């Protein structure tokens, strides 16, 4: 068997992800519908029993800027794109690790071809990144329709912010999933992976002020970049708020470095344990 390096593992994972994109296209479409459904519901459902202006005014106070109805809907659409990104990245990165090393048992094949460290890192980066692109691509026509050329710039900023966040989430969930897969004997490990997205999202206060969120939920959210990326997405449709972007980038660099170092060291140690 040929021992292959990081680049070839990345290429193999890109190939698999592209094949899966074609195979699960319907699920991607559902994720676009789901995100749009949430974004419209959060603004429009309260209007069924409340005055439109009051709903928009209250949403403006959450965002911290004065909005009209159409801008409020656009901000809501941008914010809702975080939901499938968190749900899919966390679930799918974890499920690959659970499936390949616990259930389908192709782990020995992977370990025969490359190192566990390479595989886990490549999985965290490639799956998160490509799936985020697939999940958020619907924003491009929406933003161009709503904001014309500025929409393209907004899409690039949103996409870049979500890509960085997804990679950090990928590394974070790789740590959690590896701990569960290789150090415990949990028979239904997906339970933990399924629980993390709503915990992170509820704790991030995406549509509500963070001070309302209980401290225990905030703990889960603030070890991820989601609260900070949501702040970027809240403002980017209206203006390019540099402080928000810089805050997000600073936090992202700190989190990315930390998770990358921890995952690399951890997976190197894990490699020895798993091979033995």
């Amino acid at each position: 068997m040929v021992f292959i390096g990081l680049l070839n593992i990345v290429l193999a994972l890109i190939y698999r992800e592209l094949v899966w994109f074609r195979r699960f296209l319907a699920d991607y479409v559902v994720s676009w519908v789901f995100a749009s459904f949430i974004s419209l519901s959060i603004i429009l459902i309260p209007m069924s029993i409340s005055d439109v202006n009051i709903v928009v005014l209250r949403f403006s106070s959450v965002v911290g800027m004065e909005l009209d109805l159409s801008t409020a809907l656009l901000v809501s659409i941008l914010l809702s794109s975080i939901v499938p990104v968190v749900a899919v990245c966390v679930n799918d990165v974890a499920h690959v690790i659970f499936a390949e090393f616990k259930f389908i048992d192709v782990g020995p094949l992977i370990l025969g071809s490359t190192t566990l460290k390479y595989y886990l890192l490549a999985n965290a980066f490639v799956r998160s990144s490509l799936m985020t692109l697939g999940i958020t691509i619907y924003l491009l026509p929406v933003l161009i329709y709503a904001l014309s050329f500025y929409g393209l710039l907004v899409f690039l900023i949103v996409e870049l912010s979500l890509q960085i966040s997804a990679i950090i989430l990928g590394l974070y969930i790789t740590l959690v999933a590896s701990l569960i897969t290789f150090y415990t004997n949990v028979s239904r490990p997906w339970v933990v992976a399924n629980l993390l997205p709503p915990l992170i999202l509820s704790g991030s206060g995406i549509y509500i002020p963070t001070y309302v969120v209980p401290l225990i939920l905030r703990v889960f959210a603030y070890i991820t970049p989601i609260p900070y990326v949501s702040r970027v997405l809240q403002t980017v449709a209206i203006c390019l708020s540099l402080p928000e972007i810089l805050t997000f980038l600073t936090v992202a660099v700190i989190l990315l470095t930390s998770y990358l170092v921890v995952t690399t060291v951890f997976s190197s140690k894990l490699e020895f344990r798993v091979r033995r």
Partner: protein
Amino acid sequence: MRVLTKVFKLMYIGTYIARIHLSSYIAWLVNSVLWFIFIFTPVMMLSQDVVKAFQTFIPGLLVMSCGGVAISATVEFLRWNVNQGITDIFRENGLNIFAYLLTGVHIDITVHGLLSYILLALGLSNYLNIGLPEVLPKNPVLFIIAIISLIPTYLLIGSITAYVYTVSRVSSAWMLIAQMLIAVGTVIPPNILTSSYVFLVNPLTIVAELARASYGQNVFELNTLLQISLITLPLYVVVAYFISIKSDEYISRRGLEYRF
């Protein structure tokens, strides 16, 4: 009597299956409550009157959630269980989708519906500082009627899903979209159109209205609602039974493929 015995036997089997999956049920419960808190806290906070929003949307959510579980249970029987041969075992013993829905209806309504509703109500009241008197239904009898009415509606939604899934080539992804569409008339109250009765197209609307009526937030007039319920709810069981038979006949003739 024989029919009742059969129903209880099926529910007994369902209870034991649920016991095997107890950890999944607990995880699902926590999971769904957190998702609902994430989505419905902003809905409440953006509304003019938080208490009215709670009493209007959350009973609807209880009903929508049960309808969604009925769709999931059907897709489970016709998709996931096909792969494992469980659907065949059921059908070889003369049990169709109606029987499968009966095995889990009491668990799904109690755990996925009522228990998640109670936890969500406690969570949201904590988030939004709503007092306990506002969280509890003003008319508990109507609330209990709504919960009981969920049984025939669950069976009907499940049977319709089964029929559509077997006779057409729709993928299970469409079922996820259907789970979102049933929000119309349940979470989204029927007052958004001038003719509210259009919303009766969704069978869950009647039950959602009964649940809302227990809080005094119903759109349909209560007497009309009770009269409609008396006619439609027994009818739902009969229709669900015959649709299930049709769906099963179709599977017998054409088979059932495992598809995405």
